[in-house]
């Protein structure tokens, strides 16, 4: 059933406290201007509490955890809008490197908090934060390309969120280039599919966390802001708008947690469950962002308030690790079969 252990809750609380100390809104804001800020104190703190190595096997110094163990912790990274390639490094890279990286020891470096990795599967168009990564892992043709950012010839692309820089390689790597020799093509394909599902789930958790923050921020503003001599949160139109956000968040959360359970158990249909989680969390977060902006009014439409950091994050995460169209198509195929 879907319930969390004390240990799972403790990891989330630890992450939340670490981020409260290291990732105030100013730190998120700084990541928009200063490249190094994406691997600043918060990144270091997440390494120290073990989240970056949570999905690295124990023999490489990680914690060897499953999605249900970390889903609440990733929710906290969304709540704090932590910058940096956290999902890519902690979730997407380890399973692929476990198959193609026999000798270089990247998993151990990730677990030690010493490596940032950017990852792209065939369904992911951009490399997130490739400029500050130590390693790029790209699915191409039937294999994996492992390159350094310097060798890839990175071209920056527009991002909805300035704290998340997106890149493409100048010349897309050829199949198998740079990948460890002898890696079985089917195993590599399966590792990328595994990475995609686990990363999409982690991003769904981040969207859920961002949605919770946006709801809290909108409620706090609605209590504080006075118009017509009353707090605007006493007006029914505002109440009902925020009630709908609460409904969206409350019913997205169990879908995300349920997918964490089935994905960790390797249940048949778990990929469809991940798509359900991503679609539900993205919808809840988008609705929260939209309502939070409306409730804040003009001040919310500025960079002076911190609200925009979470708005931009939601817009960006909505299309990260599969946009709605991709995940809806996977759901359609799972539930209805191919269109007749």
């Amino acid at each position, binding site marked *: 059933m*879907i319930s969390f252990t004390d240990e799972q809750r403790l990891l989330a609380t630890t992450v939340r406290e670490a981020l409260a100390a290291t990732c105030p809104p100013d730190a998120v804001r700084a990541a928009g201007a200063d490249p190094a800020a994406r691997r600043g104190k918060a990144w270091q703190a997440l390494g120290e509490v073990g989240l970056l190595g949570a999905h690295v096997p124990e023999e490489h110094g990680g914690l060897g955890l499953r999605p249900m163990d970390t889903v609440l912790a990733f929710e906290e990274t969304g709540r704090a809008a932590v910058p940096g390639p956290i999902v890519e490094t902690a979730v997407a890279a380890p399973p692929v490197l476990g198959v193609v990286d026999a000798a270089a020891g990247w998993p151990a470096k990730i677990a030690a908090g010493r490596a940032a990795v950017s990852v792209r599967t065939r369904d992911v168009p951009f490399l997130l934060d490739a400029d500050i990564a130590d390693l790029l892992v790209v699915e191409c043709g039937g294999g994996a390309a492992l390159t350094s950012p310097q060798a890839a010839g990175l071209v920056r692309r527009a991002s909805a969120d300035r704290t998340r820089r997106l890149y493409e390689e100048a010349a897309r790597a050829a199949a198998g280039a740079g990948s460890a020799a002898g890696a079985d093509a089917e195993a590599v394909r399966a590792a990328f599919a595994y990475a995609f599902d686990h990363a999409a789930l982690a991003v769904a958790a981040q969207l859920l966390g961002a949605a919770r923050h946006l709801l809290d921020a909108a409620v706090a503003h609605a*209590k504080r802001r006075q118009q017509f001599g009353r707090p605007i949160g*006493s007006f029914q139109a505002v*109440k*009902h708008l925020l009630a709908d956000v*609460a409904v969206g968040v409350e019913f997205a959360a169990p879908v995300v947690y*349920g997918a964490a359970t089935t994905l960790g158990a390797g249940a048949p*249909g778990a990929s469809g469950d991940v798509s*359900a989680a991503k679609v539900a969390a993205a919808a809840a977060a988008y609705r929260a962002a939209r309502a939070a902006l409306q409730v804040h009014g003009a001040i919310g439409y500025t960079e002076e308030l911190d609200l925009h950091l979470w708005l931009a994050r939601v817009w960006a995460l909505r299309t990260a690790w599969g946009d709605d169209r991709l995940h809806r198509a996977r759901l359609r195929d799972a539930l209805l079969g191919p269109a007749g």
Partner: protein
Amino acid sequence: MELGFTERQREFRAEVGDWLAAHVPAEPLPSMDTADGFERHREWERTLAGARLSAVSWPERYGGRGVGLIEWLIFEEEYWGAGAPGRVSQNGIFLLGPALMAYGTEEQRRRWLPRMARADDIWAQAWSEPEAGSDLAALRATARRDGGGWRLTGQKTWSSRAAFADWGFGLFRSDPAAERHRGLTYFLFPLDAPGVTVRPVAQLDGETGFAEIFFDDVYVPADQVLGGVGAGWRVAMATTGSERGMTLRSPGRFMATADRLLALAGGSADQALRDAAVQARLDAEAYRLHAFRAAERDAPDAEASLMKVFWSELDLRMHETAMELLGPRAAAEPWFDGFLFALAGPIYAGTNEIQRTIIAERFLGLPR
């Protein structure tokens, strides 16, 4: 999604599923809002009760099986998945039952619960009045002391099942000096008592699912007060929590509807409608997962309002999608009856406008 059920839970599911496969009527029963259909549904309730399946979560001494909420949710999934008849005993078993369990004396529980489980008594709720709908605390019907008992006077309305039911339950103002939610008492009364007049009211489908109940100095003995004189609001609120939350509308019902909708959409080439069906299935699954989580912890009362908004709007969206898929042939299909029923969802058990205000004030803490 696959949830990790225990061996015992899987056995329970299999037993319920097997029993239903052997006993669910092959043909749908006539509408429970007709005289004949009502009695046919009562017979079905007795068949269920014979297998101790009419109220599985109740203690065995009252006719249940004493199983937990998880097993009850499993029962509901099997029940609606099997296409079993609607529950004519619904209001008694799911609204009054929990209130009797929480606030009744042991004597009262033994008097009414086993009869309720066997459908010997079918109960109707009597909350609303002509001037007290969403604003229930504005109710005016009175209870006046008369010797050891009470005299009820006034009018209740929109009373579901009351046209054919045996007993009713509702709130009456027992302290004329008190205002609003104070001075109210929760009474149980037979609908054939002298002075009670029931006037059936036809609903959108033309059948008498509603009734008005008129009370003209109706005598009720003191042992038909539930939860103490003046405690009516508290008892009723415990009941409305059940009504709004999952005990009235379990996820099994919506999962069954979503699966039927997927089957319907599978035959359509319309991409928008196929997507709407997929979204409906996702939402029904969300409600299901939420319910299984809520069953494992103590959910706050305001969560019942979140659930009520979610399930009622989901149910309506699903039936609207079915109407679109069926087009001009829709009215000939059982989906149309479901559509009419779903339209009532955002109104009964507290309108969704009231629920959203409760969510905003009690769940989010916004100012009144």
